[in-house]
């Protein structure tokens, strides 16, 4: 039915998103390739976050939200996948580090637990490997019982990454993951993203164009609910086709 | 389906069912009151019930005019509200803007304590202390009269009126206050001319809920108002409210008798009156939130 490139893991077809009457995203057609890091840049209110949250249907938590068009994930219409299964496969990291007020261990073990893993030893293995992949293990291995909200902002954000990894998703969405972090913490999060490339598809929404330039393979530029341009990161930042992209990446507005 | 999914399905069904049960209760209450209330009107005319000036359930033939009871309720309620509203709103203003923070907490706890005193205890106070006190002070024939009830009910409605008015005052937007101060108003001018008007719907909601509470109160009025089912000429006379009539006579009726059904008709009238009052309160509360 849908012509799918074998490399494509996510595709949107004429996606239009609305909050009440306000349209947040217009006629979006985008393809996301397996194991790439796709950067999404654009000024505030350009529809970046709406796009991200449309992929795992988190937008629907807002009762005024509605959408037209389709999101295709792994050759299936996302609407046909139960929410919990879809979200298990497409994880998300929020803008501000959001931890549950429980221990570090419980935060990471939460996902696997709700997916039916009960054995303590198994959970310990999952937590350890997730924390290692998120570059956090060495900093917290001796205090897994400490309340997670006591970690620093950067540590909390890597904890969120570990928590998402613990449910073994296929895609990880990042919604401006470093907006509240200092440069050193940002670097650590970016390192973690690079390390995860071999196993996961990652989509990074960021206000920080330099961050997109540093970590993403391809970059898309969103403006006022539309995708202006998408291409290899290098191309977007050096020879963009659209003048508006050029203006934005060179810092003339935004 | 896995066992987890099944138990989840069951619990979610229960959650949705519980909402239905709440609605069901209201319908049940109405239906059961209505069923027994209309049985009265098989042999007794609704006009005589609503406008009859005599409540004489055991005379021959019996008369079931609720006018004396209704007027009794109105007297007691009006008395209570006249005492309670100015005091309550003033107290709310004091707590919201004048009282220092430490005192504020103490006052609020005291009001909470007042709210928790069982009505039967207040009724007892009315019998042993307030009634005799009023009788001696004002030289009344009896202390068991409308005024005693009104005074006690005013205190029972106080917590409702104070807390809701205080909420309404506190939630007046800061910008309003700042604008008033910016124009050089004193705190009192700001409180009186800016906060009080903008908190009006909230305060009205509090007053309505207070009225609802007073009209529905049973034990206090039954214990202290003298229980005379005649149309009172003044609040200083013994009278009888709708609620006290049900509470006082239900035990003496024979199930299925006209008297029994008449008491349900009184209950239905109370149900409808309080429903309307609470509806008004709810509407002004929602208006206040906006």
């Amino acid at each position, binding site marked *: 039915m849908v012509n799918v490139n074998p490399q494509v893991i996510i595709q949107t077809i004429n996606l239009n998103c609305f909050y009440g009457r306000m349209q947040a995203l217009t006629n979006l057609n985008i393809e996301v390739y397996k194991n790439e890091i796709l950067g999404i840049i654009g000024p505030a209110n350009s529809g970046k976050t709406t796009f991200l949250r449309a992929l795992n249907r988190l937008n629907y938590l807002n009762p005024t939200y509605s959408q037209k068009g389709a999101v295709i994930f792994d050759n299936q219409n996302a609407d046909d996948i139960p929410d919990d299964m879809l979200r298990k496969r497409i994880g998300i990291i929020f803008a501000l580090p959001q931890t549950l007020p429980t221990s570090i261990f419980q935060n990471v073990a939460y996902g696997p637990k709700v997916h039916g893993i009960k054995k303590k030893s198994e959970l310990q293995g999952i937590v350890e490997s997730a924390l290692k992949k998120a570059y956090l293990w060495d900093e917290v291995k001796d205090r897994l019982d400490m309340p997670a909200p006591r970690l620093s902002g950067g540590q909390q954000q890597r904890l969120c990454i570990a928590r998402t990894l613990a449910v073994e998703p296929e895609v990880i969405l990042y919604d401006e993951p470093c907006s509240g972090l200092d440069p050193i913490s940002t670097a650590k999060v970016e390192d973690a993203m690079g390390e995860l490339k071999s196993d996961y598809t990652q989509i990074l929404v960021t206000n920080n164009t330099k961050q997109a330039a540093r970590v993403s393979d391809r970059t898309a530029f969103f403006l006022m609910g539309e995708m202006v341009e998408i291409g290899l990161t290098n191309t977007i930042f050096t020879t963009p086709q659209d003048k508006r992209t050029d203006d934005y990446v060179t810092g003339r507005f935004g | 389906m896995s066992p987890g999914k099944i138990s989840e399905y069951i619990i979610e069904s229960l959650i949705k069912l519980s909402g239905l049960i709440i609605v069901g*209760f209201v319908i049940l209450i109405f239906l059961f009151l209505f069923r027994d209330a209309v049985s009265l009107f098989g042999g007794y005319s609704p006009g005589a019930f609503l406008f009859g000036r005599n409540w004489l359930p055991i005379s021959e033939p019996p008369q079931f005019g609720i006018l004396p009871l209704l007027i009794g309720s109105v007297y007691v309620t009006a008395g209570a509200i006249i005492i309670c509203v100015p005091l309550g709103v003033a107290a709310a203003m004091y707590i919201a803007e004048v009282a220092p923070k430490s005192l504020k907490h103490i006052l609020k706890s005291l009001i909470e304590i007042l709210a928790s005193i069982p009505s039967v205890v207040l009724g007892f106070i009315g019998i042993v202390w307030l009634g005799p006190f009023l009788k001696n002070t004002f030289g009344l024939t009896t202390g068991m009269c409308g005024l005693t009830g009104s005074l006690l009910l005013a205190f029972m409605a106080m917590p409702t009126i104070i807390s809701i008015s205080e909420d309404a005052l506190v939630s007046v937007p800061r910008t309003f206050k700042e604008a008033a101060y910016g124009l050089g108003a004193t705190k009192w001018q700001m409180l009186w001319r800016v906060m009080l008007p903008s908190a009006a719907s909230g305060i009205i909601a509090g007053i309505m809920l207070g009225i609802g509470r007073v009209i529905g109160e049973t034990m206090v009025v039954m214990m202290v108002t003298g229980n005379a089912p005649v149309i009172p000429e003044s609040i200083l006379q013994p009278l009888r409210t709708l609620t006290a009539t049900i509470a006082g006579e239900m035990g003496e009726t024979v199930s299925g008798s006209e008297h029994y059904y008449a008491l349900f008709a009184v209950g239905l009238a109370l149900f409808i009156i309080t*429903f309307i009052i609470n509806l008004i309160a709810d509407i002004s509360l929602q208006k206040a939130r906006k």
Partner: protein
Amino acid sequence: MNFARVREKIAFILLGATMLIIVLPILLIIWYIVSNGAGAVTWEFITQPPRNGMKQGGIMPAIVGTIILITGTMAFSLPLGILSAIYLVEYAKDNFFTRLIKLSIVNLSGIPSIVYGLFGFTLFVVYCKFGASILAGALTLAIMSLPVIITATKEALEAVPQSFREISLSLGATKWQTIRNCVLPYAIPGILTGTVLSLSRAAGETAPILFTVAAFYLPRLPHSLFDQVMAMPYHLYVISTQVPNMPLKLSFATGFVLIMVVFLMNLVSIVLRAHFRKKKQW
């Protein structure tokens, strides 16, 4: 001082005086009951049934009856109240049915207690043939307590940060898993506070139990849910209005025990609230 300042001063003094007019009687009432009642409360008063036409002995069956009624009330109203609050906060969409539920709760909270008594009598005592019994009385009190429990639970659920729900859902948890693991645990303090408060109110209610359960004089303890019991508020009503030549000392003592029970429950709820507020981490 200018005119406006003087006026402000006078106004504030008047407001303070009003506050005093309200607060003083509260303290007076409590002092009156405590000073007259505390002395008469003896070990015998709490542990013995009434004797000699209730003019002697204690109020043990009434204390036990009130405790049984409160327990029964909680058993019915707590699950139903919490479930329906969960429905309203977590599941309900903004539609007719939801508005109907909210309207019902407003209505339930406004129905006079004596009308609950009538309803409980005609439905539970007569129609369901429970007779005047613990079951009928507890069910009546439970329905009456529902609005307070629902409102408190709703507020507690709404106070849980939305981010907790988002975290849980984004990890692929189902809605119910999210509520169970990431919402309810953090709402429990608020729910408990509201529940204890509503039960303390139910403990002091007389009108709803008048025809549904309360016994005038029943010195033995109940054997089953279908037995009648004595209850403290009704007992106080009876001895202060229906028993001639009642020693006032015993009435005061009964009132004292009743308000102590109610205050104690309030205290529990205040302590709970303070305790959990201190522990709160978000």
